[in-house]
């Protein structure tokens, strides 16, 4: 099996053997890639399989067979983004960013009673980067890798941000309640 354009074109032309060989050959680098990013997690199998489905389904639309590696890479990167968006695993499922937390009210039901941008502006850029990366779905350990620091340091930043914003939010709520009382009296 080769990745030369002729082989890719044969697969695109409907040569089932060529297509099977192409997919089986790309399975190994995909698996190695996903393992390098998320470790030996159970989701690796799903990531590999879904990336292969992306390759399979998109192969006919690949206009330049010489770019097959880039094409497979994009399939892997898109799939990894879906993973970070929480569409895969039960990891941290209880507090999945896209799911309501059992036992608590829906976030949309609780007004912040203050300008979100103003609140975030009180944080350092480093802390805001961490919060945003987390809301993009990256686990803390990967945030630490990206920012070239330790997971403990990242979590410490989150705690400090929470403390800072908790004070601001509480003060804003007190002011909000006082305003409501004044208007009601």
């Amino acid at each position, binding site marked *: 099996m080769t990745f030369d354009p002729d082989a890719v074109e044969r697969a695109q032309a409907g040569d089932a053997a060529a297509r099977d060989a192409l997919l*089986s050959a790309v399975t190994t680098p995909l698996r190695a890639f996903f393992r390098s990013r998320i470790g030996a997690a159970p989701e690796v199998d799903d990531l590999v399989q879904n990336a292969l489905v992306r390759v399979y389904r998109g192969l006919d639309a690949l206009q330049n067979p010489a770019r097959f*590696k880039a094409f497979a890479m994009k399939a892997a990167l898109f799939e990894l983004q879906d993973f970070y968006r929480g569409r895969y695993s039960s990891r941290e499922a209880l507090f999945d960013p896209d799911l309501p937390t059992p036992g*608590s009210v829906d976030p949309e039901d609780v007004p912040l009673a203050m300008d979100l941008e103003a609140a975030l502006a009180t944080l350092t850029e480093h802390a805001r980067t961490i919060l945003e990366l987390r809301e993009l779905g*990256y686990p803390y350990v990967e945030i630490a890798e990206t920012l070239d620091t330790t997971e403990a340091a990242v979590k410490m930043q989150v705690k400090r941000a929470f403390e800072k914003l908790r004070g601001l939010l*509480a003060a804003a709520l007190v002011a909000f309640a006082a305003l409501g009382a004044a208007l009601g009296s």
Partner: protein
Amino acid sequence: MSDFDTLALYDALPAEERDALAAALKEQPALAAAFSRWRSLRAGVRAGLARDLPDRALLVLYALADDADALSDDERRQLDAARPALDAALDKHPGLVAAVRRIRDDRDAFEAAWSETVPETTRRTPLRRAETRRQPAAEDRPALRDTRLLRWPARIAAVVAVVAFAGVLTMLALRDAGWETVAGGQTVTLADGSTVDLADGARLQLSDDETRQARLLGGEALFRIVHDEAHPFELTTPNAEVTVLGTTFSVQATDVQTEVMLIQGAVSLAPRATPEKAVRLAPGQTSTVLALDAPTAPAPANLAAIDWTDAVFARGMLAAEVARQLSARFETPVALDAALGAEPVVGEFGADGLDDALAKLALALGGTVEADGPGFRITE
């Protein structure tokens, strides 16, 4: 760790601590209130990111754009169109800037995985240009003997994966049974009289059983679908589905994006993975499905962008512009009296030839077609 520290990191707690937190939230109203506000703020951060970067796949394309070989021409055009909004989002959100760095790290990790697992003999000359930038130096490569030893577990894993994937392939192969594939650069007439103009490079699959179904595997196509309310025409692309009652519309599909422009009639567009997110387009509107995201909100379409067919699609276009486009497409001068050129017109001109287009345009303008030297003129 205090309860409030636990709240701060609620999204990374082990199972037993989650249970403890859930119990504490029930017993302590102040804690529950702080938790709700914290989550509201986090949800606000998330909503802000989603608002400023609705299409996450664009971030991947943005991160890869510095590699000349990584993006297809379609993807590069897509990225160019989105770049102003992306730049604004990156200016506003430091987390997105860091995410771009992370995606580039992912890219480098893929390159490393490829180099380590794809045998040297399979990396052929045509791919070399794309690989040159990150290929390890020769002295960094493992010795051949060691490499072979290392590859055996990978090969075994590959065999296992292939066996597991065989079920998927079988399913997909069965899915393709009963479908005929048609290449681009031609017009296809369906059993019900509907027609599809395929641009060069487009690939369309048609159902053998003459049902009103088709699959656009990639490329650009213009559909003129015969109205049949009882049997809607169904078109799927790699990532979206379009349901049609009877209409004319253009579709441009890649492996990650589907853009629909509706010329007349009605269509609904939805991601294949989440058909409940369908949006309905009105004539003259466009919407795009990127990867698995919901369709973009319908927006005015630039019908002039459908410039690869003989037809000119006008929806409020000035008659003078229609005449100019007809002149270019049929390489025949088409002129209008000055009083007619500023009239807006609606319709499709040119699908059935220049004579038909001129007759339609003249009818729309209340004018008359006359020979005018090597071309034609429409007079009042």
